């Protein structure tokens, strides 16, 4: 899981009138997590993906603070302050889990051994650039955590995000104005309105949330989208 900033969480907290809820975005993303994948989930909505992965698929969760095979939340008896995830929340370890140190953990990430990472976003560009760690505000305490390592190393990067900021500004832009987390790293965006693939030809809108039209999405996106809804 990566440390995304509190700012981004605040921006994402208010659901829009139409479109998918936070739970539904996580649920939609979970459909694309394949059986047998090694997956790292960012803090916030991405964390929820785990509970919606379809039954019958076995997925191994990596947390960058040194655990492969992260399980669900602990019961009161299971709780151990030495067993936490990258968001510093108590977790459990499944049978078949493994502990390792930070050097080895980020070797897994940087060495392209992890299949999928799901993260939040402040901004995503047409080319798949991601900004999710800093607004660049001069008085902010900069904090990056493992986000830059994850986007540089994990094979597939999925983004779950509200389509616009809470003030209605577009988050999908020709260029990110916030400092980048990584350049050309995003593969797919799950917003509350739609699913978008980042391709060499541009941003491909492949799926719309119920009652949401292509034009509705396009009006809230600063990049010309390609309509690929079947």
């Amino acid at each position, binding site marked *: 899981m990566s440390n995304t900033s509190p700012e981004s969480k605040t921006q994402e907290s208010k659901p829009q009138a139409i479109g998918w809820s936070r739970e539904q975005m996580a649920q939609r993303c979970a459909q694309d997590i394949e059986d047998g994948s090694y997956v790292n989930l960012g803090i916030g909505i991405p964390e929820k993906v785990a509970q919606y992965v379809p039954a019958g698929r076995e997925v191994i969760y990596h947390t960058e603070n040194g655990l492969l095979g992260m399980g669900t939340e602990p019961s009161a008896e299971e709780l151990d302050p030495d067993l936490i995830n990258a968001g510093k929340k108590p977790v459990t370890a499944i049978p078949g889990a493994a502990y390792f140190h930070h050097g080895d953990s*980020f070797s897994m990430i940087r060495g392209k051994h992890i299949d999928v990472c799901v993260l939040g976003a402040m901004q995503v560009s047409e080319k798949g650039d991601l900004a999710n760690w800093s607004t660049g505000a001069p008085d902010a305490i900069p904090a990056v955590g493992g986000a830059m390592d994850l986007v*540089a190393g994990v094979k597939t990067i999925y983004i779950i995000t509200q389509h616009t900021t809470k003030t209605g500004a577009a988050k999908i832009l020709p260029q990110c104005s916030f400092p980048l*987390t990584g350049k050309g790293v995003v593969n797919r965006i799950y917003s509350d309105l739609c699913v978008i693939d980042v391709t060499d030809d541009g941003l491909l809108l492949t799926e719309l949330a119920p009652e949401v039209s292509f034009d509705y999405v396009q009006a809230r996106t600063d990049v010309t989208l390609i309509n690929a809804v079947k």
Partner: protein
Amino acid sequence: MIDKRVTSCAAAVADIKDGDTVMIGGFGEAGSPIELIHALIDHGAKNLTVVNNNTGSGRIGLAALIENGQVAKMICSYPRTANSMVFPELYRSGKIELELVPQGTLAERIRAGGAGVPAFYTPTSVGTPLAEGKESRTFDGEEYVMELAIKADFALIKAKQADRYGNLTFNKTARNFAPIMAMAATNTLVQANEMVELGDIDPENVVTPGIFVNQIIEVANPQQESKLVKEGVVYP
């Protein structure tokens, strides 16, 4: 005879000098060697450069070391957490320096420091502000930045078990940075929950071999950071 046990946390930290670089294990509270940090506060060495993933919580442990004015510079990946107020305040008022490093790059720089590798290339941070001013280079058509090793005068870490040679095991995700920090520091000071006899740790299961450890103090019932923070404890 090799016996790395010392009799107190105070004895363990006694040789830390003003201006030293000190690595401190832990990711949040997991693996944080609170008793050694508090001994370092009592000891009083100043102008330290401290390497840790975070900047501590509340007003105990690492946060208290910073609040006590002993830290000139932090090297870390995430200096902002739910209960951290000490560092942000000092940072905003320009009283503490920050070197912000992506978490994996931080880990690899520490590992390199311990492994005799002065520098390496990584894809992490390419195209971002954290790569600015750093050398970049292309291998096989991909761009990478060069990062330098980090070494330390001292490492303060927390282990589960230790024997007198300094062989260590850890508890779950409290392992995190400790094994690589033990490699990268000239003097590695360990607080262990339990001292065991030589051979009690199966040689197959030793996580940090004793060669990376200098002094060990048994702290059988270490304090728990989140509990202290919740209780509003202030150190000293």
